[in-house]
């Protein structure tokens, strides 16, 4: 039997994904296999039950797109091409259990524990790094590409953007994948048209103007997925609950590894099942703490409920401050008084601003005359290049001038009506925003 030249992974989004023989040991390594046990969308399957897909599939999807883009752009330097493909494959390898949901909880307790830092240590200091070097590639170059710091060879600096920017392999894959598994059509766009129209002009990735509609549908797909899936009120409820299960006190007992060479091997067991076990343990603990109460609600799938919700789209340039938001934020300063009157522990009144702390941008970049920031650039027949958000005839021009703002107040279900009544009495101006059973 001759040596296999590659292996195919059947993927529901991209069909067969071909992986070179020399990359297979990386995929088979324990750190990469761990991604099979980390759901891409954390608790979203508690709302959209199909959303049980993993970071493993998404990473392969990003790799496949990187391969296709590298071919289309005609990258001849095999080393750079393969480093770019591996950067796409490994960009999420350091995600903690339950992805961004637990990452937010970690950040509340520790400084410097972002998934990018774990990714960097895994690539530099574990067998993955050795495997990369054994095939003649640079682990440093891959880390730098993932972190947007590859400047050593300026002619390849555009590869930074293809790993993370407005139009990158990460977003190109996760919108389609999340949309498919959630069973919502909002994230769909014409990926083949977009890839066909992709070119390199100088150090910039541009889209042929003829494919403007495909670029616009990509931007709208992002907007809809963020509003309908990623910031869904029940998903956010579980994210909030997780943060309140793992507070400073309980986080200490987890002994979650730090992103260091010494600690990183302990990350191998830290998957979704491991964290679920910890939540179950807390729910069963004999001490009646707030963390235990939250864990018990979690285990029974009893999300905290919205008492108030305000969603508005605001034009950034207008400098207008909506009085409803001011009113809700002022309420936050008087949480204790309201809680006493409603006979609720103030720690069980949660103020949430989902658009503010998203680990990824909420929509296409905002209109700015200074043009700073990565962009989706169109190239016109005359060779001129223009950011789609600054092109007056583009749908994105109007979409990008607005920013969504959401504020929600949550509390456990049994206290929801009582809290709503007290807020309505104390603050009649927000009465119409109160959600009751």
């Amino acid at each position, binding site marked *: 039997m001759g040596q296999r030249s590659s292996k195919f992974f059947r993927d529901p989004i991209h069909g067969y994904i071909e992986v070179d023989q020399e990359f297979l040991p990386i995929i088979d390594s324990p750190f990469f296999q761990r991604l099979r046990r980390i759901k891409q969308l954390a608790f979203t399957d508690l709302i959209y039950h199909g959303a049980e897909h993993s970071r493993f599939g998404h990473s392969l999807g990003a790799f496949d797109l990187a391969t296709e883009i590298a071919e289309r752009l005609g990258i001849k330097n095999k080393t750079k091409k393969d480093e770019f493909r591996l950067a796409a494959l490994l960009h999420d390898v350091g995600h903690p259990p339950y992805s961004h949901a637990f990452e937010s909880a970690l*950040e509340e307790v520790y*400084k410097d524990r*972002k998934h*990018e830092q774990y990714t960097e240590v895994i690539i530099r200091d574990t067998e993955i790094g050795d495997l990369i070097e054994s095939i003649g590639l640079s682990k440093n170059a891959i880390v*730098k590409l993932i*972190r*947007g*710091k*590859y*400047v*050593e060879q*300026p*002619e390849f*600096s555009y590869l*930074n953007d293809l790993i*993370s920017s407005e139009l990158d392999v990460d977003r190109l894959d996760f919108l389609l994948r999340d949309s498919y598994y959630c069973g919502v059509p909002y994230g769909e766009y014409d990926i083949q048209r977009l890839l066909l129209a992709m070119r390199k002009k100088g*150090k910039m990735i541009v889209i042929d103007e003829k494919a403007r509609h495909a670029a616009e549908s990509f931007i709208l797909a992002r907007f809809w997925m963020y509003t309908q899936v990623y910031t869904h009120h029940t998903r956010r409820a579980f994210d909030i609950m997780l943060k309140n299960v793992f507070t400073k006190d309980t986080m200490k007992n987890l002994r979650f590894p730090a992103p260091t060479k010494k600690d990183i091997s302990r990350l191998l067991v830290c998957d979704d099942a491991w964290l679920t076990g910890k939540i179950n343990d807390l729910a069963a603990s004999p001490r009646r703490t707030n963390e235990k109460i939250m864990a018990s609600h979690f285990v029974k799938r009893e999300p905290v409920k919205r008492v108030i919700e305000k969603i508005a789209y*605001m034009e*950034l340039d207008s*400098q207008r*401050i909506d009085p409803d*938001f*001011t*009113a809700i*934020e*002022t*309420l*936050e*300063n*008087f949480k204790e008084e309201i809680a006493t009157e409603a006979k609720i522990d103030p720690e069980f009144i949660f103020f949430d*601003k989902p*658009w*503010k702390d*998203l*680990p990824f*941008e*909420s929509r296409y*970049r*905002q209109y*700015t005359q*200074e*043009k*700073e*920031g*990565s962009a989706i650039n169109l190239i016109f027949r005359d060779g001129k290049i223009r950011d789609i958000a600054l092109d007056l005839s583009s749908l994105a021009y109007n979409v990008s001038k607005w*920013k969504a*703002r959401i504020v929600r107040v949550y509390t456990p279900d049994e206290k929801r009506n009582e809290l709503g009544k007290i807020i309505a009495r*104390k*603050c*009649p*101006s*927000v009465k119409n925003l109160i959600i009751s059973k």
Partner: protein
Amino acid sequence: MLVVLLMGEKEKKSLDVFSSLIIDLFKIKKKVLGKVDCQKTVYFAKRLGAPVPFDFRWNIFGPYSYELAHNCDYLVMEGLLQYTGEYKLNNRFAGHHVSKLEPKIKNRLKKFFEEVDETCEKRGYNRILFMECAASFDFVQSNIEEGTRRKEKVSDLLDELKPEKKEDFRRMSDDAWNLLVQSKLVN
């Protein structure tokens, strides 16, 4: 009506770590001349030891953080910052702010931004462009192999990374590099 009553009171808005840091930085720097200047100000704050929670990536204007841009937009929407081409702090929120920055880092930042101002004044540089130049020099020098971190090498790379700024950056390169050396950002 609770809210109406409260609105008349002194604001006691609870600030998150980032908002608190932005107030500190804007008070130290005094003038933040727009979005590019803001990005580079926060970038240098991070490099000089301030607890900035964002990562910076290479971008057309040098180091850039989308999260920072996103968060600044929210500070404008929430009224903490005003943006009219320049950023200004809203004193209604910032007036009573108690700094959480370590005095040592605060002094380091103060000295750094004073040095930037002095250099721009003395040489007649555009402040935003000089900040962009210094930040680009710093980003490139700190992300290339240690043994190659020389001014000439960084200048050559920047010529290729930002050809449209080649002349300006070459003109400012000595001052930008000296600033980095004085601030101990270059080994």
